[in-house]
């Protein structure tokens, strides 16, 4: 279990690194756009469309990491009022729900990827599928992160020991 958790940490780290690189590229290419438009008087026309693609990867990879690290906003007030035992049970239910949603998100987004294959993104002239691919990745990652956490929670539950949470809870 510890080794799998370690692997998940690494996977999450990799996502974060990829998203960070996207952000740096986003800032750099936009710097180039401003320079091109105002100094060279020749606007690089691909920057805006590339930026719209990068923001999808920043969002969806970052969102998956947020699931792993428990950093998304949620109302925990009611859950916390329920007392220890129900709270443990609810956390398990939430992870199962999230994993199910992640799975559907992945499958439906893969359909979207297939469907968009012959539609091109303007200016970049690559299939629109590259955009929906980010959502498919996010779905798969959420499925893995939340699903395995649900499994761990369940194991901890039947072994009668507390599950150690990650991040802000």
């Amino acid at each position, binding site marked *: 279990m510890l080794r799998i958790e370690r692997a998940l940490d690494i996977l999450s780290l990799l996502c974060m690194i990829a998203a960070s690189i996207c952000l740096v590229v986003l800032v750099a290419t936009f710097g180039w*756009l401003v320079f091109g438009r105002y100094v060279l008087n020749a606007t690089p026309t691909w920057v805006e469309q590339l930026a719209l693609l990068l923001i*999808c990867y920043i969002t969806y990879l*970052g969102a998956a990491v947020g699931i792993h690290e428990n950093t998304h906003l949620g109302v925990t007030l*009611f859950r916390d009022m329920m007392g220890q035992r129900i709270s443990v049970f609810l956390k398990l239910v*939430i992870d199962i729900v999230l994993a199910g949603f992640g799975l559907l998100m992945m499958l439906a987004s893969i359909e979207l990827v297939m469907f968009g294959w012959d539609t091109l993104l303007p200016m970049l002239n690559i299939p629109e599928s590259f955009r929906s691919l980010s959502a498919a990745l996010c779905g798969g990652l959420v499925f893995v992160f939340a699903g395995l956490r649900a499994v761990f929670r369940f194991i901890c539950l039947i072994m009668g020991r507390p599950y150690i949470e990650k991040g802000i809870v």
Partner: protein
Amino acid sequence: MGLTLLLGIFAICVVLGVPVAFAMGIAALSAFWWEGFPLLITFQRSVSGISVFSLLAIPFFVFAGELMLHGGIAMRLVKFASALVGHIRGGLASVNIFSSMLFGGISGSAVADISALGSILIPVMKERGYHPDYAVNVTVTSSIAGIVIPPSHNMIIFAVAAGGGISISKLFLAGVLPGMLMCLCLAVAAYVIAVKRNYPAEAFPGWHAVWIASLQAIPGLVTAVIIVGGVLSGVFTVTESGAFGAIYALLLTFFVYRSLDWIGFKTSVVSAVRTTAMVMVLIGFASSFAYLLALYQVPDKLSSFMLGISEEKIFVLLMINVMLLVLGMIMDMAALILICTPIFLPIVKDLGMDPTQFGIMLLVNLGLGLCTPPVGTCLFVGCAVGRIRIEETLKTIWPFYLAILAALILITYVPAVSLFLPSLLE
């Protein structure tokens, strides 16, 4: 039935504690399934909801804010504020509020404002004999002024939600006076309590010190000048201004202040990714959610319902304010802007309200929601930074709520508060 399912599943998910963004996604997915739509529509809406050109300003604004925090600009702003207003009774509270105006003005994110200024100011305030609840309350409530003081990425979300017909530069100008008004109201509340609780004033450091502090702070303030100036002059688009501001902040902290090292840079990038992803994924699933609301014609129905109760402008605006405050208590800002704008904007337009003024009113309302339980990101972060329980701050926060409500009433019923500055431009 579909609408009941949408709202019901959303409510259940939120109460259970599912992250709000995913609760919206799950609710939308269920409603699409119920309507017999292919499920992929949920994600098509969500992907195209975030692939919007003007929303690209968000990562830039957020990144610029993170650089200011980790690159030492925030600290210089506090020193500047401290030199200017520290000698007032309860001086550190004024410093806190004034710093929020400066820093929150630039970053546009209330949460960034609290984690940046709170972590500098709350410990100092406690040390100087202020009670922790007071320190946290001042920090938390003043942070929301930054949402309406330009630049502000929430204004961009509003402009996008309004369908693109609203000028960002007009919104930026419209936010200035309401933001200052809120700070003024909060400063009055803070002063009265400070006198009652007998908090100290700082010694005036002398004009020379003020001069030095402002020299050090001005290059940092220029970040905001670049972004706002770029937009107002129309030289840059909002997105370009944001990118330029972020690059300026990077160069300033790295080469001029020399306070940004590799670790600081890495931290800034990672925090910016986290915040951007959190906001954008909310926007994405809120788009799926809003699509269904439009499909079920909720805006039309609600509008005829509300105008059926009364067509009196004062009363309808009051109703809208109350609804927004209640929604703000349980949901987060970005998602609510996207969902509420298409619902309420047509109503207030019918009543003859300027959409720009409505935008400011909406942001202040939802901003107050950030400081209230059960979902109050600012309140939570503030309490975490101040190491104090939420219940403790809530006992004494009401004068600050009242201060913001006072400002909100003026913003709602006196159009000039928002529209005076933009009218000068025309």
